[in-house]
């Protein structure tokens, strides 16, 4: 979609503003009611930066602890992660998926769909799967679709309903059968406690609880920035994340511990971020910056990379090497700084964008050799 087309598409703005209206007020209420959230956020940022300084150490430790209860794999990039997961699964299997941005990042669904039956089980993400689009928002992926459009999209599956409630119930019944028969459940991870190798997941729909417990086997994709030293920090991380999304407390906290668990640790650029982008690794992907950004509110995910869009999406796309039309894309930011102001981690996103304007100007200049990526954090801890 081009910019002018997005400007005419009022449903992007309507959807995002509706979410901001619903969730934004909740965030402010949460912060007032639970003042400790800000302390947690601060503590979390320091912990995440500390871990990021030494991913090698923490990953090694995480792998050793995880091996005590699961099959463990390390994927350097998205391609390798898909191959590993594809090998675990084989072909002709029924797979249920929890919504996971990391799985979007590595293109896992389409990779598996080639030889398996794959279902997104989060309602919004199922709508995205069926409409062949990328998520509009990290938490609310189908926020830009009207009820009427959802009726049409779900109709492709023969799922019928006249309104949100009927549609949701029809999807519940449809997917319940899939959950009960599924061979594999796949989820991402909101936080991973290294000390105990526990996976923490928050949600409201209950699909993650079913995805992680019902199928014969379970695969978790854990990207490096989710690593935290212990349970307490992991808990604080999911608390901060959901409080800043606006849905706090989350309806469910899941900590899957079961037989038949496979854990795939994913790097995909995270352990070798260039200097200047490291702060992005502390992002909890609450999506608040997407809702509050005045540019995003108008053109939505037209502004961003293949998977991650909006203010947080620029840094993430750069880290995971998926920033399309990279240099140009950076100039849709006005550097207004609202994202930093409302970010729970106080990530200086305008600085990250200015930084990329500098480095990409050099790397995309045909007359200059691209700058070498340095392993910035290596051995500082």
């Amino acid at each position, binding site marked *: 979609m*081009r910019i*002018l087309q997005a400007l005419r598409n009022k449903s992007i703005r309507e959807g995002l503003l509706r979410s901001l209206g619903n969730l934004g007020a909740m965030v402010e209420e949460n912060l007032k009611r639970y003042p400790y959230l800000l302390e947690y956020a601060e503590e979390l940022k320091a912990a995440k930066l500390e871990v990021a300084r030494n991913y090698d150490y923490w990953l090694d430790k995480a792998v050793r602890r995880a091996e005590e209860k699961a099959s463990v794999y390390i994927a350097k990039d998205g391609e390798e992660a898909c191959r590993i997961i594809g090998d675990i699964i084989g072909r002709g299997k029924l797979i249920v998926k929890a919504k996971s941005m990391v799985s979007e990042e590595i293109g896992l669904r389409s990779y598996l769909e080639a030889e398996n039956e794959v279902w997104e089980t989060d309602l919004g993400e199922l709508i995205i799967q069926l409409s062949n689009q990328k998520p509009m928002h990290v938490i609310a992926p189908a926020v830009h679709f009207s009820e009427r459009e959802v009726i049409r999209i779900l109709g492709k599956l023969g799922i019928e309903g006249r309104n949100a409630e009927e549609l949701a119930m029809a999807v519940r019944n449809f997917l319940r059968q899939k959950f009960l028969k599924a061979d594999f459940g796949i989820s991402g991870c909101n936080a991973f406690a290294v000390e105990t190798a526990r996976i923490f997941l928050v949600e409201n729909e209950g699909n993650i609880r079913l995805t992680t417990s019902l199928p014969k086997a379970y695969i978790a994709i854990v990207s490096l920035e989710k690593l935290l030293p212990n349970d307490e920090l992991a808990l604080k991380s999911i608390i901060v994340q959901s409080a800043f999304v606006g849905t706090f407390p989350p309806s469910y906290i899941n900590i899957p511990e079961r037989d038949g668990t496979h854990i795939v640790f994913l790097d995909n650029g995270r352990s070798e971020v260039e200097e200047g982008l490291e702060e992005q690794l502390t992002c909890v992907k609450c999506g608040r910056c997407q809702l509050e950004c*005045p*540019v995003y509110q108008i053109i939505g995910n037209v502004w961003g990379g293949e998977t991650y869009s909006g203010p947080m999406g620029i840094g993430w796309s750069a880290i995971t090497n998926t920033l399309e039309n990279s240099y140009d894309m950076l100039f*849709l930011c*006005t550097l207004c700084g609202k994202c930093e102001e409302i970010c729970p981690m106080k990530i200086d996103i305008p600085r990250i964008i200015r930084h990329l304007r500098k480095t990409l100007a050099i790397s995309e200049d045909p007359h200059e050799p691209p700058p070498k990526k340095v392993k910035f954090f290596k051995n500082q801890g």
Partner: protein
Amino acid sequence: MVSLYKPRIIADFVRESIKKTGNPLGVQSSKLTTWHEGLKLSERSKRLLFTGLLYQLSPYTVRITEILSRFEESKVEKLVERLIQSKTLRVISSLAPILKVPKEEKEYYNGIIRKIAQILLKQKVDFGYNPGLDLYSGILFYEIGDEEGFAEHASRVVRILKEKGVEEVITIDPHTTYAFKVLYPEYTDSEIEVRTYFELLDDGIEYGKIKPLSDVESVAPVTLHDPCYYGRYLELSNVPRKILTSLGIEVIDVRNSGKLTSCCGGPVESFSPNLSETMAKYRAEELKGKGCMVTMCPICLSNFKRVRAPFIDFAELLGGLYV
């Protein structure tokens, strides 16, 4: 595929214009410093009014943006880009006649600066103005990620001011203010004091000097659009509010003000003028009906005016009250 005017082309244009004329649009500098005529301001004062040229450049920006807006994503978009790259435009002092900027537009923005000067004079603030020392801050270099270019430009500005013995500048727009208050100390060895004109007025209030000369009763409530640099980065949004309140004017704020202010869209005007306009429209809608809409940044002001949103500058409001 996202499409916008190629930032590299725009950035090159800006860089070259600054090199040639000292300002990002390539307008002859002497044309930008005529606003003070007749005010008899001293050129030798250690404390200078430093406009940073942004108010004066606004009518030119508006014209250029109108042209860019018309051709965005059209068949001739590429042609416009090539034109921006062309040698003819790079001898940019020729730009002004091509643009045909209406005289009254220039006078309007010059008038705002005059008002600021007059208010300061009325408040017995001791300051001068030297057109030769009224320079562009270079903040666009910083914003496009060219930190070296910025440091170089900023150092030159600081050196020139120092050579002439300038110790303090009074700024009038948020971009120049941010450059002087935050960036210059970081990127140069600047020790120049910097205050915005409204901070100086605020001092006046504290000393009980400021008094409304006209009838405040007739002034409707005001709603302020805080520019991002003032409201968020510099946290100065309480100052204009204090001034207005002490003059007896009611200020009505929306949620998105002060530290949470929402951008007018101005900074993307040359990359996607249509996006910029849409942002301005929505922001204006948000503030409509609350009171007289006031801002204090030439980029915000001209962007709002481009979408015909009835904003006035803070200096216009104050000027109307007691000059």
